[in-house]
């Protein structure tokens, strides 16, 4: 099936198989391997992207369903000259990642969190990020990073 999406500001026209998820198509047909796939059934959050500005699990949405949508992935976070997004800077500064597998989903979830909760306390950050699983960090660095990014806004 033919679909059109805007991915990180770039218009793409693709032919996709209906059973392929948005995560698959982003990774394999759009070259955006920044979006990670962990569990492939909605529980780990690694594949979280924004579709029309709302967070979604890209493993639970077929790419055909994103036809006509605007998709934002972790690869659209940095600015054109390569400057990292303040959230990315904060993750680096606070050791918000170790292996980095969960990081794309963490960043996209945090981005939406900061949009909807401009001054989150640590409890809110923990609650809103609880759908994203990290096997490495123990979460403290992630919460610290999101807290700082919120403060700097």
């Amino acid at each position, binding site marked *: 099936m033919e679909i059109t999406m805007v991915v990180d500001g770039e218009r793409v026209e693709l032919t996709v198989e*209906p*059973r392929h998820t948005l995560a698959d198509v982003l990774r394999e047909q759009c070259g955006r391997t920044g979006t990670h796939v962990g569990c*492939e059934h909605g529980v780990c959050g690694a594949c979280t992207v924004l579709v029309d500005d709302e967070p979604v*699990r890209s493993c639970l949405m*077929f790419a*055909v369903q994103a036809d006509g949508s605007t998709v934002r992935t972790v690869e659209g976070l940095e600015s054109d000259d390569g400057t990292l997004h303040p959230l990315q800077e904060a993750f680096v500064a606070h050791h918000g990642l170790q292996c980095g597998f969960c990081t794309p989903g963490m960043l996209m*979830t945090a981005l*939406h969190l900061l949009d909807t909760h401009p001054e989150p306390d640590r409890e809110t950050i923990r609650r*809103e990020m609880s*759908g994203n699983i990290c096997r490495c960090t123990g979460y403290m660095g992630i919460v610290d990073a999101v807290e700082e990014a919120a403060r700097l806004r």
Partner: protein
Amino acid sequence: MKCAPFEYVRPTSVDEVLAALVAADGEGKILAGGQSLVPVMALRMARPAVIVDINRVEGLAAVERDGDTVHVGALVRHRTLAEQSAHPLLAEAARHIGHAAIRTRGTAGGSIAHADPAAELPVVAVATGATVTAAGARGDRWVAADDLFAGPLMTTLDADEMITGLDVPVPTRWGFAGFARRHGDFALVTVVVAEVRGQVRIAVGGVGAVPLRARAAEAAIGEPVERVAQLVGDELNPTGDLHGSAEFRRGVAVEMARRALASAGI
């Protein structure tokens, strides 16, 4: 894992959805938010031959108050339900569903149709005495929530019927209490108390195959809250699993009932 191949159709009206389901001859499946169906397909526990995507069907996404009832279209997302103010109990229940990314996509109709015994919206539907509208080739029919849930992940709807919406009475007093081990997890036990048209109804989720009415406790309304809550526990016959033993669940149910009754002011 990846889903097995399927034929994909994207109708824009209820009639077209029904025609597609009939044409699929029992091999078709409605796709709404996909937050329950896609995992099941990814695990290959379901391999529908035809996916009927209802996300672009018009007119199913509104929350509207009509007298003492709120109509919720099948495609109303959990997020919208959580943010609306026409039905505060539904808003509270929707806030307990999963995480933001799940609430972006998951729908009211899908949650009811999926009939997960631990899901929040079916418990609210039973507690309030909601009515589900099911469209089928033979026209619409209206099913009371008490008659809808047949077992875990099973309803009394036919495979070629589609939920178009639900009418949920607005309770004059209500209480919602759920216990989950972690934020966003399915609740171990959910208790909803709702006073509708002068009658107090109590429904419990997570401890049986379907949301259960606690009728003995309902009959004891007026007695001390602790006593009514104890009756809720006495009526249950929970089974234990790795998330909690039967006795633990019963204990949690009594406490959730106490909290729900107290917050309803009953």
